[in-house]
């Protein structure tokens, strides 16, 4: 039976963690866009279901925030700051929903369910942001100076035009009428 070397196992496990954080981030990005579109397009229905009538504009503005954050997550090479942005948004959402947990709200049960759902997503956001953040900290280190790597036998100024003997093929030449920069 073949045994994998510990360093390879460690690398493979690190790669799996990295890939799952990336996948989770992309999932959260799409979720953000879908939730944002719902908040934007169905703000009236949402506020009615949560017993929060009169807050339609606020919910629609949260929708815009969700769409922007989702696009940022999907578009960014490093989505970690955007995921932390989602965590901030989650806190805002929880604070807003908390105002609907009042016993006088006839839709208190719905608001409670929404509160629990947002709390769950917040946990996911934090896990994802921490996983991505850890990867980021590994970052770039040091600078290698390649000033001695010219590939040329003499200083570059001395090599300028060394291949002027090369005949550019006819199909790659600039047509004669389009050569406006002749030095007189």
């Amino acid at each position, binding site marked *: 039976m073949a045994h994998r070397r510990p360093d390879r196992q460690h690398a493979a496990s690190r790669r799996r963690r990295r890939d799952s954080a990336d996948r989770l981030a992309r999932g959260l990005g799409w979720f953000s866009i879908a939730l944002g579109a719902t908040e934007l397009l169905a703000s009236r229905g949402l506020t009615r279901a949560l017993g929060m009538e009169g807050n339609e504009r606020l919910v629609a503005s949260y929708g815009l925030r969700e769409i922007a954050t989702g696009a940022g997550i*999907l*578009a960014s090479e490093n989505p970690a700051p955007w995921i932390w942005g989602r965590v901030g948004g989650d806190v805002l959402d929880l604070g807003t929903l908390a105002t609907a947990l009042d016993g006088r709200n006839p839709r208190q049960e719905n608001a409670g369910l929404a509160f629990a759902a947002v709390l769950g997503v917040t946990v996911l956001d934090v896990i994802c942001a921490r996983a991505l953040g850890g990867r980021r900290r590994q970052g770039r280190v*040091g600078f*290698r100076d*390649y000033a001695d790597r010219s*590939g040329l036998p003499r200083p*570059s100024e001395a090599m300028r035009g060394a*291949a002027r003997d090369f005949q550019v093929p006819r199909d790659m*030449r600039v047509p004669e009428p389009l050569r*406006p920069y002749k030095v007189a």
Partner: protein
Amino acid sequence: MRALCWHGKHDIRCDTVPDPKIEHPRDAIIKVTSCAICGSDLHLYDNVIPAMENGDIMGHETMGEVVEVGPEARGKLKVGDRIVVPFTIFCGECEQCRRGNFSVCERSNRNKAMADKVFGHTTAGLFGYTHLTGGYAGGQAEYLRVPFADATHIKVPAGIPDEKLLFLSDIFPTGWQGAVQCDIQPEDTVCIWGCGPVGQMTIRSALLLGAKQVIAIDRVPERLSMARAGGATTINFEEESVLERLQDLTGGKGPEKCIDAVGMEAHATATLDSIYDRVKQAVMLESDRAHVLREMMYVCRPAGVLSVPGVYGGLIDKVPFGMVMNKGLTIRTGQTHVNRWTDDLLRRIEEGQIDPSFVITHTVGLDAGPGMYKTFRDKQDGCIKVVLKP
């Protein structure tokens, strides 16, 4: 044999796979002595070019020793010959090959029907580069089958190290063609976007072909230092305005010749259009990010030339074609017609005019290849070019 195989996004593995066999009388098999990871392999690594399949062997920069020759290739090759393998597979006989347009060979893509549908007309088969271009096994392996081997090879002499010759397979002729198709004049300023391996070769090519001034744009300090070593004036687009610096360096007139050595995965900068591209690509409404193309169209001097050796795969959006038309710009692009240039470039290497090995920063065995993909992609550890020794 061992080979680096594609298993999905960011998943390259060193697998054991069956040895290649002669499948056609014009084939040859080579024992690979050196191969390299190309910037365009990263498009496959990032899974932004379609039509890869699980287990496909990667790699299109390869050289080695001929170990088996099909009967119809024997007039041109024999066992023991040392060859560099061009990344474009070509028959040498069709109408395009007779014109020297080897990268659009009409016969070497065995998935011609698919390419006809996607591109309108087929292009040449490529090693290790999706089933759209033939699905041929690549050369990041211990052995490689070379189809149409009687034409698809560059014979190289003994006594010159692999490192000086390997890049005749792709990046050196690609940088050379990128500069040549600008038809550089002694009074020209040539501006090159991207200082990766192709960009580095393009900088040296533009200098050797006699450009008055070579400007190179990137953001990675190591790449910029290597660009300066090759005679370029550099612009770090994260630290300074490309537009303002180009205005300063060209007396407000813009460069006559602009070369895109970046391609479809341009880095998102602080500009609105590059953020727009990232978002559209992320939600699958656009396949390629065209920031460099737009910037070249904007800054290029009227009646200038845009040369595009950088790889694009599909659709781009918001291209200011009105600028191109009204400024009378000429666009030249295409995969490289490798063998059109290699006799001349081999002579220049032999004469010592250039040593392309300057670009190599990492040399590892095949086993370490998967890790080097990530190092190269993330530009870590000063990585600019990786050579693999099977």
